[in-house]
């Protein structure tokens, strides 16, 4: 039965974990995603050493330099600032906003979803109604609305994105646990007298981990996208600090003057977000025990 396989997966042995790791890396696309993220992260973290210029160094005599200009490999922007340098520093901002927002999302989402589904009763009603209410707001509307009033900083933007995006994870966790709760192996655990915290941690958490991991990586991707959009509109990271989103603020006119200036930051966003999505997909294939069964036995 599925239940047997699932509860077996709930006890991770070193061998099982390493085989999940192997499967993850065998997933070529996920490995590519990991590689791209590693490159972007190293570029962002190492910006002070890797960047050829200062990110705010203005050179009016060299406005809109095309790519491959000596000293400016990727050209310069409307103020003559080095594009490569700004892309690297923008990576710091965009990636850390994404990571922080994702953490907030996962923590709040799991806490809400798990306590609502497991305890039931009025806790369930209050928490899931709150989730429902929050879900009614399209997150872009809600985010823009709040962002327009809050003084933007890296932390406030991450918090705002996290607090407007946790509902999906809460719902996934909630639905997953609702189905798990009525399954036989949970009933068995309760029957032998396991306390509820133990059932949550040992039986339920491992069985919801796969969808949480997948949702978390997707949320990271989504957070980067949201940050780029509100920064593009001018309500996010404020210039002169660079983020991939606010480098696109003048994209519409940049396309006429210097298309590369509008294309490169967008490519950086797309690369980062694609990679996180690829990693999420790889994680899913590696972590889901039922998928493993399929890979071993049943024909495709």
């Amino acid at each position, binding site marked *: 039965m599925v239940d047997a396989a699932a509860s077996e997966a709930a006890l991770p042995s070193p061998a099982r974990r390493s085989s999940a790791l192997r499967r993850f890396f065998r997933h070529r696309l996920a490995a590519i995603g990991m590689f791209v993220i590693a490159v972007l992260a190293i570029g962002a973290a190492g910006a002070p050493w890797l960047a050829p210029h200062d990110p705010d160094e203005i050179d009016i005599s060299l406005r809109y330099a095309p790519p491959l200009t000596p000293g400016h490999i990727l050209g310069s922007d409307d103020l003559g600032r080095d594009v490569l340098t700004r892309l690297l520093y923008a990576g710091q901002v965009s990636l850390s906003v994404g990571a922080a927002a994702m953490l907030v999302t996962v923590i709040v989402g799991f806490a809400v979803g798990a306590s609502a589904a497991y305890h039931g009763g009025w806790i369930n009603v209050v928490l899931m109604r709150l989730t429902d209410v929050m*879900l009614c707001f399209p997150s*872009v509307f809600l985010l823009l609305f709040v962002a327009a009033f809050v003084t933007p900083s890296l932390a406030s933007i991450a918090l705002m994105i996290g607090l407007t995006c946790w509902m999906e994870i809460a719902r996934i966790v909630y639905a997953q646990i609702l189905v798990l709760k009525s399954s036989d192996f949970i009933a068995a655990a309760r029957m032998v007298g396991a306390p509820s915290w133990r059932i949550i941690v040992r039986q339920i958490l491992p069985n919801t981990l796969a969808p949480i991991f997948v949702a978390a990586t997707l949320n990271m991707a989504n957070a980067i996208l949201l940050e780029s959009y509100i920064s593009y509109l001018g309500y996010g990271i404020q210039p002169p600090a660079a983020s991939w989103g606010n480098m696109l603020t003048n994209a519409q006119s940049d396309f006429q003057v210097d298309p590369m200036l*509008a294309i490169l930051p967008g490519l950086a966003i797309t690369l980062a977000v*694609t990679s996180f999505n690829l990693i999420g997909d790889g994680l899913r294939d590696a972590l889901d025990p039922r998928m493993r069964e399929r890979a071993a036995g049943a024909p495709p």
Partner: protein
Amino acid sequence: MLRFLLNRLLQSVVLLLGVSVIGFALMHLAPGGPMALYTLNPTVTAQDIERVKVLFGLDQPVYVQYLKWAGGMFTGNWGYSFFGGQQVREIVLDRLPATLELMGTSLLLALVIGVAIGVVSAVRHNSIVDYVSAVAAMIALSLPTFWFGLLAIYLFAQTLHWLPAGGTASTSGGDLFDRLRHLVLPVAVLSFVLVAQWSRYTRSSLLDILGQDYIRTARAKGLRPSRVLLNHALRAALAPLTTLAGLQLPLLVGGALVTETVFSWPGMGLLFVNALGMRDYPVLMAILMVGAFVVVLGNLLADVVVALVDPRVKLEHG
């Protein structure tokens, strides 16, 4: 069943109340509040501020303001714009058809294409088709919509001159063909993301089901693969997909906002962003409420459908 429906309907009303409370609270807790435009402007005197406050009823206690506003919301009195003093209802409802036109066309197109791609890549799991569609879907999902829209405008409108860059119709004429030409780019951009999401969801949901023991049993019994897929798997995959359709509505509305701002599509999204810059809070609130109303209706529909098709979900009557 009737009891369940009535129950859910009541819950939806409660939801809308919750939405209005949160929205209203947000507006008033924000620094500067609804008066930000005036209080942050140094040329406006204290007397002027007091006058404007009385004019808009902002001098009364918060709960009175809320009750007045919520009552107005239900009776169709959405207040007046801070700019020009026009009726908010007129401003917002003027923009609704354009948004619905964009959203409806995109959703329909995306549903058909997305589910089809999802089923094929789940059935041909790990094949070339699966990989290509997965990569294509993920790139589509990863493109910043606004940037993708700008790119499309640059390519198809400004460089190739095939399609108009924005708006719903040319200023000179507005025949059907002209309107359709204006619809192509925004719909393509908006549904591109939706197709990606639907194909991903369909694939993963169907894959989950296809790994179950009862599917193996059905196969072992010697049922035709097409029958296993359609009668056993796809039907079971429908439940989570329906929930996701409900969940996706806010994304659709949000995506429409982004698409509208890029293509100057005169819908509610463009209106929202314009109103945001001017802190025109009656307009912002009205759009938030209309958006939430659309989402509440969608979620209600999704829950009912899930309850109908998935016997594992217990119908708990609060």
